[in-house]
């Protein structure tokens, strides 16, 4: 079952979704860094 090459519209859609994911993972990374900062200043 070979996959067909994707259309131009799908290519743009995929690119937009990847950009969106970078934003999502950026947010998660920010939360991680906030937690790391808290870890460094608190007595956990």
């Amino acid at each position: 079952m070979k996959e067909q090459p994707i259309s131009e519209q799908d290519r743009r859609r995929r690119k937009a979704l990847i950009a969106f994911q970078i934003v999502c993972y950026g947010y998660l990374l920010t939360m991680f860094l906030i937690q790391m900062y808290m870890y460094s200043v608190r007595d956990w």
Partner: protein
Amino acid sequence: MMNTNTLTMGGMTNLDDHHLRSRQAQWQADKWMMVGALFLGTAVFGLIGFPLFLRGLALQIKAQRQGLSVRPTMVTLIGYLVAIDAALNSIGWALDLVAHHTLLARVFLMAWGNMFDAGYFWHYNELWIGGATAPGEKGWEIALLPVVFCMRIAAAIGFLQMKRWGQQWLIITCWFGVVAWVGYIANMTIFADVRYTGVVFPVIGWWLYDIFYITPFLALPYLHSVNREIFTD
């Protein structure tokens, strides 16, 4: 009389034979991968499941190289990953939600709480509902367990069967995953003092363990742009 399907193909005898051999190869590979996924989904027996799963995956890739019509490898990987992810989340949270007083839950979840997340240690089993007491945790369990994770396992099965509804519902549950993780991590950060005080491995331990669960929505660009025609109604 000659059947319309008795066309000669490459090294194969005919289409019927090719179809039969493809189905057999796929089922053979799926048997290994399903047993592997069942073990992996229990968390504690994960180490047993991993080699079984890899054996199934190797069988499928081999069948693909032989020219048989099997499921695309990417569909297989995403389908099983999502099913295992949902099973792992379900088992832990189902224990906490409805079986929080069992010996298994008190050992398994409180050990987890002691090591990584005090939400599962601090005042454990002291609320009227029992189980984890971290602010917001029960709300996430009730919202995500019956709605997202159950739907996600069903969607993954449909997706692995190459059904159109499986692909569509996998997209929906992967978007649920984005919402769930954005909200859950905000909650963890806001109540970080409750969740990390006194634990053995604060922050880094939790993130190392949970990063696997945060990955399923990486599948979204593929799911949105894969050729829809490979999935059947």
